[in-house]
């Protein structure tokens, strides 16, 4: 294989092997006094993200339906853009879900 490819792969392998440096050390007596706030934070994350993504998707669908009403022949192209747009907006609300899951996981 070419030298630049070999160099790139070697760099990746070296980063991979440096993993032992991330070993965590033990903690002292843990302080759980803030744990009442974690479920509130997780709920707010989902609530706000879900609400705003719902608004965004509503706007996207409204424009798509209006465009279809003006020009019914553009159905295939509009459908493609609509589905791609909805999936990308959906992914923002799913990022919030991942954070909420991690926050709730911290409780255990």
């Amino acid at each position, binding site marked *: 294989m070419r030298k630049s490819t070999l160099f790139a792969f070697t760099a990746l392998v070296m980063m991979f092997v440096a993993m032992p440096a991330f070993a965590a050390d033990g903690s002292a007596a843990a302080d759980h006094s803030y744990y009442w706030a974690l479920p509130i934070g997780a709920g707010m994350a989902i609530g706000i993200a879900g609400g705003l993504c719902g608004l965004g998707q509503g706007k996207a669908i409204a424009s798509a339906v209006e465009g279809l009403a003006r020009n019914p022949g553009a159905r295939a192209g509009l459908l493609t853009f609509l589905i791609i747009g909805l999936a990308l907006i959906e992914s923002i609300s*799913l990022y919030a879900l991942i954070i909420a899951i991690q926050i709730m996981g911290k409780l255990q």
Partner: protein
Amino acid sequence: MPEQLWFTALLNKVFAGPVTAFLNQLPAPFHPVHPEAPISNAFAMEILVVGILIIIFLLVRSRLSVEKPGAIQHMAEMMHEFISDQGADIIGHGSERFVPFLVTLFLFIAIANLIGVIPGFESPTVNPAVPLGLAVVAFVYYNLHGVKAQGPIGYLKHFMGPVWWLAPLIFVIEIISTLARVMSLTVRLYANIFAGDMVTNSFFGLVAVGLPVIFLMLHVAVSVLQAYIFTLLTTIYLGGAVAKEH
């Protein structure tokens, strides 16, 4: 002994000895936690998906014919044309050499997502390491082709933005947003499939018959859609990386 699917248990029964011996030769982080079951569920399911893909490709290859194309050849051609037309649209000319990678990416992610619907199997993509691996492969691929097409200096220059006096600020922003692409590809794929699994399981817990089928259908649609979105975004990033400024 971790909880294993039947396919994982089968693979571990046959291959546990050699795999554990090999992993023990490597540095400490690679030593298996359970020496009698070194192959994890996600890995075994990935091997299964690769096996299915190889069988499909061999099947298509063995039945290729110019005069009388059969059904499976039509489907393979439709799939190839779909990705190839999209590549030509987004990347412009010279997109032909990226199409095999993109088709493989699409088929791998689609089948990996769908295999979780079958009882007894689990999507490898619900383990967050698998979408991360796919995102890193796509990231390395498009950056490598960008550097190959424009040279390392030319490739870094297109992070600088249009005007030279804003270049330091825009360079930092562009580097951060490029690294964020790995994270966004990973989390999008992982969260969609994981959330689909969680929602389907919750509804199976609530109403045992009938209603969960709707969520299962939604999960199937989301699986294929997310595979398509991953491939589309990789195509867009490829197009941005190899584009020559005229």
